[in-house]
């Protein structure tokens, strides 16, 4: 097994496209994911979950489970010593349901036993008597108050309005429509897994877990265990993707409780089906939008109503909602707006963070509107976007001024200028695999129509609304070896690689060791919100600069040069004038430094009741153009090409940026044409990869990308976050291309074959 930390990597500085240390082991199968962890004498844990979306728990009888040989512990809500609930923003989710269950899959009990099969039998032997209740599944009923509260905190998690400029102004041209976004799953490949080791004295616990934010987990676990923070230590287990689904607690508290109860190591692994039930999803949303414009296509006002279905527990719904409503205008100048948004509670699966975080939903609607507006004004879709493109200094509908680099028009122009595919439908070699239907050979070229669609997005970076999501990094230099320590979750985005590149560039040494990623250093904040390159990159950069300055001071003394004249040049330290040059290794010989730095972004504000306030930290922009072949008779599609120009600030590792662009597009494509958790009356119909479809290689288009590098003065390295933008406007671009091909409106994602053909999506009853 190989792990990525602790390895010495000695090549690559800022700007180099070096490949990642975890890449080859992952492809070869030797990478240690957290599900590969094991310890001597380790027990297996498993979770009993509710089969009902809404029910009262009449009784729980665990005695049957205890009678099974090999069962070491059975725990329920009564066994939670500390806080009975947890949550990222509000602590509203029970560790185990006690009186009521609020969604299918809600944990009720957990067992620890000698074998997974023993666990399975133990779970089957627990008898829970339910009084089944009518579930609340329609978000509108959560708003109109026609369903009793399903939680003491009420059925509306948050409502936020934005009123800006003249709310009554009317444009020459008005277009409106309803949009719907289905529930997408993050569908990371490395399933939830953790192992907890109890301390010898039973007072604390060490947890190895695949997570996005070690310190937030630590805080919530310690509260539920009722122990001080210092009694809970977390180490990052190998993570196989996250995309938001590892931001909330899932198995962390259960695993720790079982380890403390049994005094033995315990590991829990979710199955794929359990994973679908055990983590939060992308919010399904219904959006109404009305756009007003002048007759020549300039935006006058945006009106919107957005309803985010948060499911049973709050998770990050209130923040997702804020992202949705504050991004309703898209990357376009607009002086007037009336936006009303709700995040509501239902008995559907809980929803929270997923790549794009509320902006995916807003963008699908505003880009549909921009195309409608273009048609109504008789302007080309690309032209109308250029006409309205925002620039640095523009004011958003929240009153916030965009201070970041904002190359929106450049993103649009460069995307539009990228070459269109030069091949006809089916390719030059008439390969049937390249037609919609792919391996199924459903079509011949004559059945296919091609369409082109365009979409543009704005995305906030980092956390919002006064949250200080700082990051910490420690840099040690000893005998010419640099060791970096941080708690930044490497979830597959490549931060470990970037951190080494930063250190090598700042300090001039080749050898950088990445220390274990754990809670023995301060928080790094979450690996989410496209923030780690900026935040943890900023912290690593600052810590390395501090060490470099100490080294310069030492060199200045020993060589009698002005420390302020020193600089790093490759592997050397030089004086600016160029006469003095010494290798960094030689200069550092016998010296050691150890510096820890916190990096904070500028403070942000809350929104007031009219949605006004400088709530966001920074922004990035992107444009996508999709070319899609459609079989209108069968409703099948094949995305042929995606062209994109993305505002990246500065590409610290262009290969890594491209990886994010391609991966983000794959996820955006999934939402556009296939990925959806289908729920009926609170029950999940497709919790497996047989029926929850992810794009395969045959579904992925050619991607051509142009990186727009205008270093951002606010970013510590000029680099903007690049993880989320690719997934945001790729979805509406693909849908626009399908609309273009078939000439019909499509206002819902994922687009289903029946939507394209014009058949009903559900059987008539």
């Amino acid at each position, binding site marked *: 097994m190989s792990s990525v930390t602790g390895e010495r990597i000695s090549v690559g500085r800022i700007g180099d496209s070096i490949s990642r240390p975890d890449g080859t082991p992952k492809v070869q199968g030797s990478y240690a994911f957290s599900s590969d962890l094991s310890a001597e004498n380790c027990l297996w844990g498993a979770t009993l979950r509710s089969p009902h979306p809404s029910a009262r728990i009449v009784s729980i009888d665990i005695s049957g489970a205890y009678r099974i040989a090999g069962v070491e512990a059975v725990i329920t809500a009564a066994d939670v010593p500390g806080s009975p609930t947890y949550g990222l923003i509000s602590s509203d989710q029970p560790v185990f349901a006690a009186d009521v269950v609020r969604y299918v899959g809600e944990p009720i009990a957990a067992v620890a036993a000698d074998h997974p099969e023993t666990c399975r039998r133990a779970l089957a032997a627990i008898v829970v008597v339910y009084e089944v209740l009518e579930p609340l599944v329609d978000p509108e009923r959560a708003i109109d108050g026609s369903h009793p509260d399903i939680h003491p905190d009420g059925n509306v998690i948050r409502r936020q309005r934005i009123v800006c400029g003249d709310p009554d102004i009317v444009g020459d041209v008005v277009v409106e429509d309803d949009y719907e976004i289905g529930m997408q799953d993050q569908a990371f490949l490395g399933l939830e897994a953790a192992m907890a080791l109890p301390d010898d004295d039973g007072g604390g616990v060490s947890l190895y877990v695949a997570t996005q934010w070690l310190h937030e987990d630590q805080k919530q676990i310690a509260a539920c265990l009722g122990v001080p923070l210092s009694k809970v230590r977390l180490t990052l287990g190998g993570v196989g993707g996250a995309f938001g689904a590892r931001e909330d607690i899932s198995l962390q508290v259960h695993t720790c409780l079982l380890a403390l109860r049994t005094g033995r190591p315990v590991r829990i692994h979710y199955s794929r089906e359990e994973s679908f039930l055990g983590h939060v999803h992308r919010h399904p949303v219904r959006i109404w939008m009305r756009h007003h414009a002048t007759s020549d296509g300039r935006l006058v006002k945006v009106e919107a109503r957005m309803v985010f279905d948060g499911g049973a527990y709050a998770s990050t719904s209130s923040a997702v909602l804020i992202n949705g409503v504050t991004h309703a205008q898209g990357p376009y100048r607009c002086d007037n707006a009336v936006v009303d948004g709700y995040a509501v509670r239902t008995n559907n699966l809980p929803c929270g963070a997923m790549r794009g975080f509320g902006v995916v939903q807003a963008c699908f609607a505003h880009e549909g509107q921009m195309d409608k507006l273009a048609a109504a004004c008789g302007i080309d879709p690309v032209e109308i976007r250029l006409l309205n493109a925002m620039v640095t200094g523009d004011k958003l509908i929240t009153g916030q001024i965009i201070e970041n680099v904002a190359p929106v028009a450049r993103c649009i122009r460069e995307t539009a200028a990228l070459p269109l595919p030069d091949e006809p439908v089916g390719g030059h070699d008439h390969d049937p695999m390249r037609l919609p239907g792919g391996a199924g050979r459903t079509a011949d070229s004559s059945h296919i129509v091609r369409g082109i669609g365009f979409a543009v997005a704005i995305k906030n970076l980092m956390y919002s609304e006064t949250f200080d999501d700082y990051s910490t990094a420690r840099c040690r230099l000893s005998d010419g070896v640099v060791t970096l320590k941080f708690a930044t979750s490497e979830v597959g985005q490549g931060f470990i690689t970037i951190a080494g590149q930063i250190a090598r560039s700042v300090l001039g040494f080749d050898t950088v060791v990445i220390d274990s990623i754990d809670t023995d250093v301060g928080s790094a904040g979450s690996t989410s919100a496209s923030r780690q390159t900026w935040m943890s990159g900023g912290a690593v950069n600052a810590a390395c600069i501090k060490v470099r300055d100490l080294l310069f001071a030492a060199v200045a003394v020993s060589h009698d040069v002005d420390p302020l004249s020193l600089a790093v040049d490759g592997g050397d330290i030089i004086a600016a004038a160029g006469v003095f040059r010494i290798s960094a290794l030689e200069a550092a010989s016998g010296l050691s430094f150890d510096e820890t730095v916190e990096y904070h972004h500028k403070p942000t504000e809350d929104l007031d009741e009219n949605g006004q306030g400088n709530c966001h930290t920074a922004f990035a922009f992107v444009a996508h153009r999709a070319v899609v072949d459609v079989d209108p008779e069968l409703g099948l599609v094949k995305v042929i090409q995606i062209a994109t120009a993305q505002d990246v600030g500065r590409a610290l590792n262009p290969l890594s940026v491209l990886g994010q662009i391609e991966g983000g597009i794959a996820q955006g494509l999934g939402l556009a044409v296939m990925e959806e958790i289908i729920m009926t009356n609170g029950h999940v119909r497709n919790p497996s990869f047989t029926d929850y479809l992810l794009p395969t290689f045959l579904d992925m288009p050619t991607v051509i990308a142009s990186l727009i590098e205008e270093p951002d003065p606010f970013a510590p390295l000029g680099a903007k976050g690049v993880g989320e933008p690719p997934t945001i406007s790729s979805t509406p671009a693909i849908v626009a291309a399908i609309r273009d091909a078939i000439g019909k409106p499509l206002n819902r994602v994922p687009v289903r074959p029946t939507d394209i053909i014009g*058949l009903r999506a559900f059987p008539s009853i």
Partner: protein
Amino acid sequence: MSVIVPKSLSDALAALADNPDALVLAGGTDAMVEVNSGHRKPSHVIAINRVSELRSWTFDPVAATVHIGSGVTYAELMESPVAQLLPALAEASRTVGSPQIRHTGTLGGNLGTCSPAGDGLPVVSALDGMVHLASVAGDRSLSVHEFMVGVKRTARQPGELITGVTLPVLSGWQGYSKVGVRNAMVIALASTCLATDLDSRNVRLALGSVGPTILRCVEAEAFAAAVVSFESQSVSASDARRFGELAAAASRPINDHRATAEYRRHAIGVLASRLLRRAFPNE
């Protein structure tokens, strides 16, 4: 749980005679899914992938038939020369799963599972294949139409092993089409196999995923045989459309979370008429 790995057919049959209800494991791409999900808890497993008699195919030029051992994989069926002899089977094999599944999954396993969505089955049905079963008590062969009894139900008796299928080599065009919501590795929402025979001048059409088991479309087949021209390889656009309508009418789809019955029926009509046009490309 006992696992037996016989190396010969006679050993396999003997093992099966000892435990007639043992789980026969070929590629395991259906069986292990069932085991892992807890739907099946076998106490005995007989793994047959080392039984060499089951792992090859043979062409009989005199009878113009191909015998395919039950352990032949999809990947092998996609290779020439068998792919040239049975093009529809090769096309159907290419639609199955991913490369990993095609290198492990077998035609025998497809028959053993007998899912209405099994991609090999419409081809075997359209070609009126014979399924061969063996046990220590003796061998028997039956038409695939008798073998497939219902949704995941076959005429195989406890103690019997599927040893292979025999398919005729026809002289006309044949092909397979399958609709799913993804361009690869997807369960068929609707599928069709069309096979034509110039010698006997007939057209066969079998439908997958739109009934409890694979359906043949007798009416559509008779209609096609009457309206197409085998000499000029032609069919009129309206006759191709009518053929599709007859196929759709013969389908008996259900609504489920994967698709509506209405969509499946519609798709059958489109696929059938497109396949007829591929077989008879001239107007």
